[in-house]
């Protein structure tokens, strides 16, 4: 029983500590620091109310600062030092990276991933959202397409390892191939194209996400515009591409960006499926090669990923500011 007991105790301590902070910090503020009684009651209440937002915000700001903002700076500084962090090497790590053919492969593959996966997922999501819109069993179909969202990248990779297996008694692709008289091949070792096989796993996972959001957006398209188009003689394809899509283009962009961000972070699929061999390396999995043994190179790769994401980040912030006004 010990692992379970240990787990339960740690959970209680962790969660309890967190609840305790908010409860007692608030109590402290109201009863001890600025009690709402005595001669200065009014002033004290105002003061307490000025501090309270920061009491509420403190853990969030602290965690965000420590776990996301500090690393941006910390990683950059770290990437300027050698593998053990003793000696300042300036841009040395970056120069070494760009001279490394594996890095160039990873970088190019990453660009390919960032283009293909969001495009294909959004397209498939939109297509399925539209197709299932009027279907009687549309909701069941949507649930099934959405299901891979729940599966870990490791689980999904294993699932697809079966599909791509070389043994025709295991892999359905090779089973079909050999039933037409072909020889079994290992799909994951076919240079260049194996990247697309790996990308398809992520498409399989992400299409459901795109579908759910785009399907809601499609429902939001006003009926009148569609009816007007039909009366004017538009065929279903014209209604879809000329009436519906332009009206939900904002949502399409949001979905596209969200998936792009995810693609730039994901490493599990390549790590589990090929370990980066056969020319399938991408930046996050390439970084794992250096993790734990060459912090300089690892952080340099991480910073390159950050630079790639930067435009998306800026776009996001501008978008949010526009909404808040």
């Amino acid at each position, binding site marked *: 029983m010990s692992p379970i007991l240990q787990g339960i105790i*740690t959970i209680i301590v*962790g969660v309890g500590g967190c609840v305790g902070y908010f409860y007692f910090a608030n109590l402290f503020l109201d009863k001890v620091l600025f009690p709402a009684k005595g001669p200065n009651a009014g002033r004290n209440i105002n003061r307490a109310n000025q501090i309270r937002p920061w009491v509420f915000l403190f853990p969030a700001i602290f965690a965000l600062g420590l776990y996301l903002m500090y*690393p941006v700076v910390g990683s950059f500084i770290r990437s300027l030092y050698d593998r053990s962090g003793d000696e300042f090497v300036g841009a040395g790590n970056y120069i070494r990276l760009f001279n490394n053919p594996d890095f160039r492969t990873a970088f190019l593959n990453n660009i390919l991933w960032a283009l293909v996966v969001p495009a294909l997922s959004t397209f498939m999501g939109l297509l399925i959202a539209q197709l299932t819109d009027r279907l009687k069993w549309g909701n069941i179909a949507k649930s099934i397409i959405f299901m891979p969202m729940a599966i870990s990248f490791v689980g999904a990779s294993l699932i697809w390892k079966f599909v791509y297996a070389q043994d025709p008694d295991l892999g359905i692709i090779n089973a079909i191939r050999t039933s037409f008289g072909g020889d079994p091949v290992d799909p994951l070792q076919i240079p260049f194209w194996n990247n697309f096989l790996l990308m398809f796993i992520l498409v399989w996972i992400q299409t459901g996400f795109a579908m759910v*959001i785009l399907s809601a957006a499609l429902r939001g398209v006003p009926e009148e515009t569609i009816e007007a188009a039909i009366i004017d003689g538009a065929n279903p394809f014209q209604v879809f591409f000329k009436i519906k899509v332009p009206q939900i283009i904002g949502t399409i962009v949001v979905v596209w960006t969200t998936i792009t961000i995810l693609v730039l972070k994901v490493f599990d699929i390549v790590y589990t499926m090929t370990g980066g061999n056969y020319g399938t390396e991408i930046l996050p999995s390439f970084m794992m090669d250096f993790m734990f043994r060459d912090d300089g190179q690892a952080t340099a790769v991480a910073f390159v990923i950050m630079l790639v994401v930067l435009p998306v980040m800026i776009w996001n912030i501008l978008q949010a500011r526009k909404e808040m006004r």
Partner: protein
Amino acid sequence: MDNIAGQKSGLSIVTNVAVFLIVLAWLIPTVGLFVSSFRDRDQISVSGWWEAPFSVELTYRTRADDTPTRDGDLYVAEGNIFETGEVQDQFTSGANSIAAFGLRGREPGAFTAGETVDNRDGGTVVVNADGSYVYTSPEPLDDRGPRLYFLAESPPDFTMSNYAEVLTGLDEDERAQEIATGATFGELLFEEAGIFRNFINTLTVTIPATIIPILIAAFAAYALAWMDFPGRGLIIACVVGLLVVPLQLALVPLLNLHNQVGIGQSFLGIWLAHTGFGLPLAVYLLRNYMVGLPRDIIESAKVDGATDFQIFTKIILPLSFPALASFAIFQFLWTWNDLLVAKVFLPSTGDAQVMTVKIADDLLGSRGGDWGILATAAFVSIAIPLVVFFSMQRYLVRGLLAGSVK
């Protein structure tokens, strides 16, 4: 309008078929894994999971009877091959048939059933389709009986044995041994280094890593949505920007920091990491939701003398339930499924390993070819998320829509 009506019925068939094909393509890989996880290991290697409901031809080896009778100069061993010692456990149903037999392990199916062939002893051997065999030899037979190989149709064999093996980490013989010494299956689950231990570890990581960020984010979101203070806009902008920061950036500096402050690679460390990484989305989603709550309720509560803490716990929290539930599902799925953070912030081997790491690093490495075990391990790891997902799907979708469609 009639041309539109006409097009519609034609299109509707196409639509139905197209959606059906897509759904099939989406479902097949998972079904394959599910079926494989229940199949006997020998069967996995000789037929695809799509043939699982059908019987397969497997190779068996056994020994003929060792107490021959005399027939003139010959020693004769007779009997039914399905009743011989080494295989009788596997053929209890009675309706079995033999496709081929052989005398050497390299050619287990060299001869068709019913064919009479010469054996190495100078006599003959025949194995009939119904399993009856006659083995003759001019010499006295080996003590243990002569070796025979055969191919037989073996019925579909669905078993929970893969699950027992994956969960306890012991194969069938080892389990039998342990149980013979008095251990119960429950004890094996907890004491052996099977994936059940990793399952518990994953829970230990996931539960606090789901609850803590929600608590922290809910308070922060309330402050950002309903309290007035300088710098609010800047903080919101920061949160939105941080949504995008790649995790990879955080790994090296934070692991170093954890080591310096003495947390090292531990559960506490991974909770903090998951909390930090989950917060931007949590604060963003919850704030968007809370801003949309009716101002009147909150103001009238204030007029009635409620403090911010009371408003938060008594009004905002219950009203925000849909958003909280949706984020909880997200964070749960994300932490349960995470590989990267666990690889970096937990020790890579031993007691604290979570399931994804165990599968990706241990099982795929050492058991790479053992497909039954891999399928089962993968299925154990995706079972809980799937249950959560299908039972809470409504909230998940609602939250997704609240957060991303304006």
